[in-house]
């Protein structure tokens, strides 16, 4: 995970000099995040695993071209991951593999104290959340992924998606409100609006 005490700046520079140990540390640091992005787009673990390998091979070959600071690495990595997954989705032969339900079983290792019923409920909740996310348009789905899930700043998301910052901000707000309503409709949580258009 990226909040572990890894000197990302030094690790990146060592990778660019061909240090294999630094590369291994970087892969360990980022693989769960890249795998999460791949699963978000491709819906099943097998394809997400293949895509993750492909993404890291592209990152490996593109390391020399990365000239930014440590804080620019995550947006760059996520941009590569997103493009790679979108290329896979565009392939007509394999598109049908990405239309089914999300395989959310055993996505996370359950805590030792978690009961099986809690695990099933959590997986069901995640499946509902993924399905709701996938009903958005491609652009809104990308914005939700990059900003609200991966935690990038508005400016970083705007640069990756080649959109104005204002557009990203307004779309993000609308998408979150719509997502909240979708999920609330499933559980009838929200009362009738008093003055909503």
């Amino acid at each position, binding site marked *: 995970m990226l909040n572990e005490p890894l000197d990302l700046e030094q690790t990146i520079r060592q990778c660019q000099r061909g240090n294999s140990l630094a590369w*291994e540390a970087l892969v360990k640091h980022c693989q769960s995040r890249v795998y999460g992005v791949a699963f978000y787009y491709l819906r099943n673990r097998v394809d997400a695993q293949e895509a993750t390998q492909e993404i890291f091979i592209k990152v490996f070959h593109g390391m020399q071209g990365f000239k930014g600071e440590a804080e620019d690495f995550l947006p760059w990595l996520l941009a590569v991951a997103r493009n790679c997954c979108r290329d896979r989705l565009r392939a007509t032969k394999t598109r049908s593999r990405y239309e089914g339900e999300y395989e959310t079983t055993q996505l996370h290792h359950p805590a030792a104290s978690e009961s099986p019923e809690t695990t099933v409920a959590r997986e069901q909740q995640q499946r509902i959340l*993924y399905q709701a996310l996938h009903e958005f348009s491609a652009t809104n789905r990308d914005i939700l992924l990059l900003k609200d899930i991966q935690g990038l700043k508005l400016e970083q998301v705007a640069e990756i998606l080649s959109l104005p910052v204002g557009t990203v901000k307004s779309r993000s707000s609308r998408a979150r409100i719509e997502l909240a309503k979708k999920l609330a409709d499933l559980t009838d949580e929200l009362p009738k609006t008093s003055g909503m258009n």
Partner: protein
Amino acid sequence: MQCREFNKLLPLLLNGAVAPDSRDACELHLDTCNRCVEVFAAASAAMFVAPDPGAMISTIMQATMPATCATSADLLCEALDGTLGEPESVLLHSHLQDCGYCQQLHSKLQTLDRELPMLAELQPPETLLAQILHGTSARPPPGTHHLNPWFAPIRRVLLRPRFALEAAFTATLLWSALFGIPASVLDTASAEQPQVIERLELRQFWTQTQSGLQLEIAELGPELSGPVSALENIFFDSVESARRRGNMLRLHLADWFDTLLAGILPGPI
């Protein structure tokens, strides 16, 4: 007007339904009758009932600016992102106090803010790391070199298209000035300048030589003395031909055949 008439008109007066002439008469009577003034005041107080503040506000807002909750929802997102200014924050909290819908929406958005980041990282399969390292660490990354810190800037300059074009142009000018325009590849008379054989010609030469050699050997059988001479003649001809044509590659190939024959044929050549 008498007090009895005033009492009869009192309900109409309170509802505002009395005729103008009668209202004037009632007002004149109130100016002179303290008892009717007290009765009128008591009756007026009993009529006023304060409506539910929330419902009243909602009714007023629906009649004037019905998009309040839409505005509130946008401000909720900004508040959760920490980008909402102080004046808007005060207005938002004021709205949330009376709007159950926006309160629930706020709660749901807060839940999403907790749940969405949990999708950022997923536990990958245990074999993934090994697969990635196998696919990438088998060879060094492109562009790395033990002299990279020194060589990289020079390499970047050399790889610039403009530099390459200018270098090629300069080299062509220098070559033309020193050696003249190179002769045509097909010009066999220029024996002083060795020329690079075309790949097709080399392949044809190889095929012809190999097939000719195989025919010779097949025909010869165990009687090698005569054939050795014949083979020698074939390759001497090849060597001479290559030398005449100034073709260095053919010459090397002929030398290679010579060495090969020396190894497989007995007796001095």
